[in-house]
């Protein structure tokens, strides 16, 4: 039993690294063969990967149902846009600041609700998402520009080169993905990562082994929100205009779906699923009005035939969760 498990996890490690190598090879070769448009599709794919991975920390690692993740993303994007507009702070610094701002928001906003059981937490995060979006629309203190949103004029600079073209962003975004992947793999093997998984599998038992579950959950929200916030900066510079329309409940829902469709807790799963969510509708453009119909159908079929997700995580327990044995 024990040897079987360790063999399985070793297998999954090698499968993971094989996946990442294939992905890396693909990403390196891809831009040479396609138009800027497809590079741009991949930029948004990368942004969704960053967001998906950050949500995966909360949903996948700790098992907290968060269906309002774009709230934190919005906090990051708006922090960057406001500070850039008013103080002209360097974008790299802003990326850090917006990450911190979102992390603080993640902590402060979720601290009082951390004790809620799964579905209630889900509803509350939906509520937070709406609260933040509506607040942005209502333009408090003239900060957020209301429904028009804000213009972001400044851009990232690397040794004097302005990150501007699709390929620049491509390199920036996927570079960030690589860094994040490295950090996440380290995190998963760390004491914190193990603590998260204990909390997810059995919060009571985790508490009894001396893990502060509240702290573990808060930390996951902070890190997840922080990464989403930093991603918000990239998004703001890429779009050059941000408005509340980008941070809707529907956007949160599709992020949530990305994590589950990929295989909860699975890093390759998030990458694949966000790719599918981005690329499939693009490929189905010819179906025009029918494509969102097919897309909904695909989601249902996917869950029926592969409920564990595209690339299930071996670290997520195989135990049936809440379903009933017949």
């Amino acid at each position: 039993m024990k040897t079987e498990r360790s063999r399985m996890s070793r297998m999954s490690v090698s499968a993971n690294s094989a996946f990442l190598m294939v992905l890396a090879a693909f990403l390196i070769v891809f831009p040479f063969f396609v138009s800027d448009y497809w590079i741009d599709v991949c930029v948004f794919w990368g942004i969704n990967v960053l967001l998906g991975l950050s949500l995966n920390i909360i949903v996948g690692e700790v098992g907290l149902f968060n269906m309002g993740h774009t709230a934190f993303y919005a906090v990051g994007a708006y922090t960057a846009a406001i500070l850039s507009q008013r103080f002209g702070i360097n974008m790299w610094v802003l990326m850090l600041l917006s990450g911190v701002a979102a992390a603080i928001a993640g902590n402060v906003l979720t601290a009082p609700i951390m004790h809620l059981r799964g579905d209630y937490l889900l509803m509350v995060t939906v509520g937070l998402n709406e609260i933040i979006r509506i607040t942005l629309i209502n333009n408090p203190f003239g900060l957020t520009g209301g429904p028009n949103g804000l213009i972001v004029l400044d851009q990232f600079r690397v040794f004097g080169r302005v990150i501007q073209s699709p390929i620049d962003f491509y390199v920036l975004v996927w570079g960030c993905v690589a860094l994040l992947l490295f950090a996440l793999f380290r995190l998963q093997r760390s004491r914190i990562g193990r603590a998260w998984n204990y909390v997810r599998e059995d919060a009571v038992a985790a508490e009894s082994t001396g893990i502060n579950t509240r702290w573990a959950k808060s930390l996951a929200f902070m890190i997840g929100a922080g990464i989403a916030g930093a991603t918000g900066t990239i998004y703001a510079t890429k779009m050059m205009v941000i408005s509340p329309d980008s941070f809707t409940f529907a956007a949160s829902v599709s992020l949530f779906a990305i994590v589950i469709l990929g295989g909860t807790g699975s890093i390759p799963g998030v990458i694949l699923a966000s790719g599918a969510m981005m690329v499939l509708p693009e490929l189905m453009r010819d179906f025009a009005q029918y494509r969102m119909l097919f897309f909904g159908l695909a989601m249902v079929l996917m869950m029926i035939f592969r409920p564990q997700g595209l690339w299930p995580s071996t670290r997520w327990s195989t135990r049936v969760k809440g379903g009933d044995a017949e």
Partner: protein
Amino acid sequence: MSGSRSARLLVSLALLALLSMAQFARAAEPIRIGLQAPITGPWAYEGEMARNSVQIVADEINKAGGLLGRPVEIVLGDDQGQPQQSALVAQRMISEKVVAVVGTYGSSVNDPAAAIYERNKLVNIAYGSTAESLTTHGRKYFFRTCFRDDRQGEFFANFAADTLKAKRIAIIHDNTTFGKGLAEAARRPILAQGKAEVVFYDAITPGERDFTAILGRMGRTNPDVVYFTGYYSEAGLIIRQMRTLGIKAPFVGGNAAVNDEFIKIAGIDIAKGALMTQEPLPTDLDYPESKAFVAEYVRRHGEAPSSPWPVYAADAFKVICAAIEATKSTNSDVLMNYLHNNLKDYPGITGPISFDAVGDREGAIYLAYEVFGEGDFRPRR
């Protein structure tokens, strides 16, 4: 020697033939013009009408022999009414090497696309995005065939104070880029002129259907006129719920409220007498272009377009084609310069079209429309 000479001649002749064939081939290659519109999503209906309208113009041009001897082709991009999709569609238009782009409908959706077109120096002409902010960023390649919110807001301010003799004005918007933009644009001149006061100013949430609470609160401020700057679907509900609550103040809608659906939702008894600030509708235009266009649209789709926006899309397309024809060029800078400087009073479907320095259309004409008992909008006399 002579053999080699004739061989050389033969080769050069063949080359010439090839070249001319290539020339011919290139001539037959279509000129591609983008249309960015919401084909799916909540504004799908507007997107569909825009596509229908542009198609009519394109077919007409192709029937008449195309542009510069080449056919025109529409490259459709569905932005779903979402900013991120809009950015992607913009990038796709650039990758598809379209000559210029028509679009899009919503202002906040248009903004990211316009930013990308600007960076890639691609002429883009919006057809439904009326937010002032779009032409305040100094973009050179952005134009629009529709008019700006502030012109309409100003028109309302004068109309309310001078024609309706209103002293107390209530303004309700819907917190969208467009609705709030127009509401702000109306409130500013009212405050500046000082002829009337704004007694109520609040927003509804689009997609909801019960506005009795906000209307009740508004009713207590005793407005002489109510200006709603959102869309027809909510406008229809608002006027009906106002009347149910016993608020008798005249209802004025913005140009997004002008739609047959408004009358259907409100009911003709209630809708009758409602006023709208509005550019002249295609059916009310006396230009021959408008009559021909509306006739063709009715022939194909059984009814006239129910909102003005698709016609602006058709005009945007026409203007692009006109610029290509006049400059014999598909170069973006040439087109941009032409549109800014040389296009004067081009006879569009919606009247003469010229652009000012920031890309806004010149010479806004607004009318107050009234809903008549027969269930149609007619200019108020």
